[in-house]
């Protein structure tokens, strides 16, 4: 069955078609959202939200772009919308401690674990810009539009984020690294 047929059946609410779309695209959607969130529980909430929004919006999907591209935009917007909602909420309430469990698995390489952990440690805005640019391939214009900043700010945040990542990765792989190397 083609993806177009699946989408058509999913629009009619067919359980098997919606499940099939989920199985096919969930890992990509979840990876994007998880990295933007930097936190498992937020990522789970936002992934749910992204899928509900996507299925709601299916009647508006006309096939002008790839379904995966369309879905990915919804996922990113859900994560960014989720972020704003959380910021509004935490302005009113005392912030809750957030734990970031990182489960080691057989298939994850040490490098991948280090990258994921370093991403989690970045400040939120730096992480978002780095994920959108270096992981997801967004341009600075697209990031500026998504985050409501100008492209120059996106660039500046990207360079800071890459530098911070480098420091975090170096600390993770070379705990005894000498201080003062390559600094101005």
């Amino acid at each position, binding site marked *: *069955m083609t993806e177009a047929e699946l989408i058509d059946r999913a629009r009619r*609410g067919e359980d098997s078609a919606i499940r099939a779309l989920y199985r096919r695209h969930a*890992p990509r959607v979840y990876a994007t959202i998880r990295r933007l969130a930097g936190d498992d529980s937020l990522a789970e909430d936002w992934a*749910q939200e992204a899928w509900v929004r996507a299925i709601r919006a299916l009647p508006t999907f006309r096939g002008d772009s790839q379904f995966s591209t369309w879905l990915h935009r919804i996922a990113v917007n859900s994560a960014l919308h989720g972020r704003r909602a959380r910021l509004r909420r935490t302005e009113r309430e005392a912030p809750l401690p957030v734990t970031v469990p990182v*489960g080691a*698995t*057989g298939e994850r390489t040490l490098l991948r674990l280090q990258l994921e952990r370093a991403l989690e440690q970045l400040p939120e805005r730096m992480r978002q810009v780095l994920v959108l640019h270096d992981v997801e391939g967004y341009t600075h214009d697209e990031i500026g539009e998504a985050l409501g900043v100008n492209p120059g700010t996106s*660039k500046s945040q990207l360079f800071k984020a890459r530098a911070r990542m480098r420091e975090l990765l170096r600390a993770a792989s070379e705990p005894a690294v000498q201080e003062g190397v*390559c600094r101005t």
Partner: protein
Amino acid sequence: MSHLSLETLARLVDEPAEAEEAAHLEMCAECRAELEALRDQTSDLAHLPDLEPPPDIWPAIAARLREEGLLREPRRAGGASWLRFAASLALFLAGGAAGFAVRGAPASEPPDAGLIPASIANVADVDEAAHLLEQTRAAYFAALNRYAELAEPVGRGDLMTRAAALESILLTTGAALDQAPADPVINGYHLSALAQRESTLRQISFDPSEPWY
């Protein structure tokens, strides 16, 4: 010597260097190495793999979609017999498949359907226990297949429903293995579900070039 800052080097990952920066890089091996490390880091980020979502996300999404009327309940084709089948399989797999997964598949020897030893409690060796599990598993599946033959002919719709159900199981066990890759019981569930899915797909003349759903 004043080195280039990390932020400057981070910019040079995808932008050309100014003349002064290029001159410094020409003579500074440390900064060249840092720039190379930043390029590797950027490339590694671009190749990060997708992530399997936790298994409890789908049920939550499905519940919300049902509440909004966006997802209809699945049609239950031949439900009773497959429900019984699934219940039996689950009961068996809860114990039996673990040994199969951990010890591998030793059985070139034929299953002995009558072999359900009364002395199970006396088995004290893990290898003997695994062997017993494998024998019991083989006998169980032989009986189950015979039951399926006698109980009722299985239509293509039933098989597709079963294949879809097994796919759901694999989604869950795959995610569970991500968290506990060495757990023998989870491996047992996963391997058994995989084998059953392959068998079911063969029965419905699965064309690998097309999704079966």
